[in-house]
């Protein structure tokens, strides 16, 4: 009833190709943005921001990055954690070497460094495909984390081997380091993820995105119709690694505060891959939904036993959490292999008719 599209006629190409062609969607998105930028910082408390919203935004950015590579360009990668580490470590090196450099510019530059590394490790994709490629990207994962662990230059010769986010300001407000409020960090993460999601959305529905999808669907056919696999695949690796690099830098600077390579190990790569698959391959919205699912599920699993008054031993609870998490993933894949984004589409389809059946 509310979500009726009848009577919304498009008279220009611009309105026909808009990201939100339906007026209700436009209003919904706008409302969501206002709520996220104005409402949330006013009402949310420290715990909500720190434990749920900030990691959700950062993981969303990483998931968008991986979704570009795996969902749109069809190149399975298990090296996400390493590319995030590249972003984090280069941001740390840059901001300690040039403290006066604006922190947002540092994030962008570290994204570029990650993109360069991603290009390098994307080279094998021209020759090998599928799971062979996935295993090859593990080389990046293990080599890079080893490198950051072994070479003390990356941590500025700190004996602890950790990188710590130094205090930096942005337009006079403290955004990183121990002195930054959760609100400030949340707003920075939100602004970045909104800007990057918009950029990604426009990228994937344009010329570049179409050539990615052509390569994904049938690479030989794509080559025949004139899409250059070298350029297309490497571009996907570069842009995806850029997103992951920025997300990695944010992970340390806006969320964790300090980190060692353990924070970027293979389980992070798998976690981001889960977000992409559960959210929906080849969907920007899906990246957000998947990130929300993966961030919220463990928190729920930890709190549910207490909530229903069950007292469990700590190790037992940890094992049950693992089991339930694994089981949930399998269940989700069985129920909807195309992810949460598809569920949302189906819901929208149903909403158009609701409450009348025809």
């Amino acid at each position, binding site marked *: 009833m509310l979500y009726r599209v009848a009577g919304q006629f498009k008279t220009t190409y611009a309105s026909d190709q808009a990201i939100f062609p339906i007026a209700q969607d436009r209003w919904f998105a706008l409302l969501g943005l206002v709520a996220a930028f104005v409402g949330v910082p006013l009402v949310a408390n420290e715990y909500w921001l720190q434990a749920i919203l900030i990691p959700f935004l950062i993981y969303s950015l990483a998931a968008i990055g991986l979704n570009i590579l795996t969902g749109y360009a069809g190149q399975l990668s298990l090296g996400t954690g390493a590319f995030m580490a590249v972003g984090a470590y280069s941001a740390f090196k840059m901001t300690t070497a040039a403290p006066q450099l604006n922190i947002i510019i540092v994030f962008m530059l570290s994204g570029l460094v990650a993109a360069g590394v991603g290009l390098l490790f994307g080279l094998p994709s021209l020759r*090998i*495909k599928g799971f062979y490629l996935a*295993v090859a990207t593990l080389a990046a994962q293990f080599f890079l984390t*080893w490198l950051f662990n072994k070479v003390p230059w990356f941590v500025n010769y700190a004996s602890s081997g950790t990188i710590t986010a130094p205090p930096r300001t942005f337009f006079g407000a403290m955004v990183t380091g121990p002195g930054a409020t959760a609100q400030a960090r949340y707003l920075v993460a939100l602004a970045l993820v909104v800007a990057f999601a918009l950029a990604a959305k426009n990228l994937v529905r344009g010329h570049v995105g179409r050539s990615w999808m052509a390569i994904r669907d049938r690479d*030989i056919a794509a080559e*025949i119709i004139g899409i250059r696999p070298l350029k297309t695949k490497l571009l996907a690796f570069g842009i995806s690694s850029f997103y992951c690099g920025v997300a990695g830098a944010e992970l340390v600077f806006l969320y964790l505060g300090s980190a060692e390579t353990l924070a970027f190990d293979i389980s992070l790569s798998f976690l981001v891959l*889960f977000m992409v698959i559960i959210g929906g391959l080849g969907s920007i919205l899906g990246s957000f939904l998947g990130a929300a699912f993966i961030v919220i599920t463990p928190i729920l699993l930890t709190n549910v036993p207490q909530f229903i008054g069950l007292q469990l031993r700590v190790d037992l609870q940890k*094992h049950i959490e693992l089991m339930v998490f694994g089981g949930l993933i*399998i269940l989700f894949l069985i129920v909807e*292999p195309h992810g949460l984004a598809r569920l949302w589409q189906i819901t929208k389809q149903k909403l158009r008719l609701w409450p009348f059946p025809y």
Partner: protein
Amino acid sequence: MTFWQVFVAPFVDMATNPRFFVEVVLGGIFAGVMYSLVALGFVLIFKASGVFNFAQGAMVLFAALTLVGFMERKVPGLVAFALTVAVMAILAFAIERIVLRPLVNQEQIILFMATIGLSYFLDGFGEMLWGADVKRLDIGIPDSSFQVAGVLVNELELTAAIVAGALVGVLAVLFQRTRIGRALRAVADDHQAALSLGISLRSIWIVVWTVAGIVAIVAGVMWGSKSGVQFSLSLIALKALPVLILGGFTSVPGAIVGGLIIGVGEKVAEVYWGPLVGGAIENWFAYALALPFVLFRPQGLFGEKIIERV
């Protein structure tokens, strides 16, 4: 790090102390056999069902935990082994029923993710059932060394190699000489054709997952008696992956040869070149070793040739 240190000195070391070099290579071969054991489980399942089973490592851990659990409850060794085989068979049945059947005809990446979920589940389940502390697995073979022609040989590693060799032999006979083996090969060749000949895909999958489970038990026993049964066992799956791309996802001999190449290469590199770059290169060196091979043969050394059509 000079040219001399990297390209000359290690070889001089090898030539001046050949006995030590042989020991290093032998150690590498034994480690390689262990990798092959894990890789074998991957290959069996990938061949028969096209599923890249990431849970193989978790299955190794689960099998070892189950075996130790039975033995701790004073069940005699062989009975415990038989019971563990039964447990793995039940597990295979359950996996086919609950995970694979609803996901049939889905894309490979979806099935891959499902097996990652499965590995989380098995890790949690095994440790909940049998406890998470490090357990010792004693199979009556001392972890000691004896000398053959002046070269130190570890008894446990030698046993592991022999057992692995025997297992591969048994598998080869199973595949080549038995009715069920022929059915397995038929399914591996072409699902549709096998189905039309009246081979039941479902029962074949159960058989394959059970066989992979038995391979996991053997791998679990060998790794477990060497380093104790603990959570890190489930991480050896990561060790087996470079073996897979080197040998090819679909080839049993590939898993063996790949395992040996990786094992030897890794040990030699760690001993002779590792100190130059600060050590602990084991984690990634196997991948660096496998990559050049794969760049020239994208399907691995023994994998089936990939023919692509539009």
